[in-house]
């Protein structure tokens, strides 16, 4: 009965959770400026939330450092489906100028499916707004898809979520392997 009403409310309030995975702070500043009165993403319902459990859109900035990768995976696993991952700036997709560094465990695609990427170093706030709008559209689509499957995420997403949880619980995921590999290299 209330489904239509709930759908409309969900569409009008995609909440953002921001993960800083070793960013230089440039992208973080621009993301915050998106929420200021000048660009005001809150008129479309984008709201920066403090916990991943209430988030719909996850914005990741930074080149995924060794220190942050475990936390990134654990945080992403806590975001309920359907979720939409947005990479902010050049760093999460490639490592940018930090490419090839011993302290980098990126790119982000190794750990999760990236739905929307906003390029630039740093992106302009308008570009970020456009990216978020696209992410909201994708989120809407995913939600519709999920309803078709009886409230479950389509299989790849479920598999990814389960995998993430396993990684977070047992610490046997890519991140640990990568880190062990790096440590062995350092020892040798």
């Amino acid at each position, binding site marked *: 009965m209330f489904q239509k009403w709930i759908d409309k409310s969900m569409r009008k309030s995609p909440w953002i959770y921001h993960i800083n995975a070793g960013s230089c702070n440039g992208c973080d500043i621009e993301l915050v400026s998106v929420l200021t009165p000048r660009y005001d993403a809150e008129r479309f319902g984008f709201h920066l939330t403090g916990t991943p459990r209430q988030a719909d859109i996850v914005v990741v900035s930074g080149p995924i450092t060794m220190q942050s990768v475990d936390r990134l995976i654990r945080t992403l696993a806590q975001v309920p489906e359907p979720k939409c991952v947005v990479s902010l700036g*050049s760093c999460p997709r*490639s*490592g940018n100028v930090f*490419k090839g560094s011993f302290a980098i465990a990126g790119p982000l695609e190794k750990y999760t499916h990236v739905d929307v990427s*906003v*390029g*630039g170093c740093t992106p302009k706030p308008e570009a970020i*707004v456009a990216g978020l709008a*696209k992410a909201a559209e994708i989120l809407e689509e995913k939600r519709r898809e999920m309803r078709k499957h009886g409230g479950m995420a389509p299989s790849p997403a479920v598999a990814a979520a389960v995998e993430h949880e396993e990684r977070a619980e047992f610490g046997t995921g890519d991140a640990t392997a990568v880190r062990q590999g790096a440590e062995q290299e350092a020892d040798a």
Partner: protein
Amino acid sequence: MIFPYLGQAIRNLFTKPATEKFPLAEAPAAQPHYRGRIAYDPSVCVNCGMCQKVCAPQAISRDIHPLPNGDQEITLTFDLTSCTFCGTCADFCARHAIHLTEDYMIVGTKPEDFLVSGTFTKKKPPAPKFTPEQIAAMKAAAEAKKKAAAEKAAAETK
């Protein structure tokens, strides 16, 4: 005056909001000399490779594909997900084949959305008219001729 900002407050009631209309309206233009999406013109490129050398995040890749007639098909690809938009490649380009445009809307869902590439064909250099042996022989002949002329001149003065 008790309310020094009252005038400002009343004026603000009748002014337009400071919020930008985007995305409901068109995106505003960037500042002049903004360094956005790369534009590459392969028709003036000479394949010197300088851009690739100066690119700090290694965003530029070059693919040289030899053709059967001796020409080379050269493709330069700029990966905007690696780019720092520093503009060094454009500064170092001797032929001005690279420009950083003012287009900042670099938003996409696929990696292909972030690639800028261009292809051109580098002609095989024309074969030289004479082989090095022929040139050496011609030089020797010229030398001998000169020597003979000098000897003849010397004999005449005696």
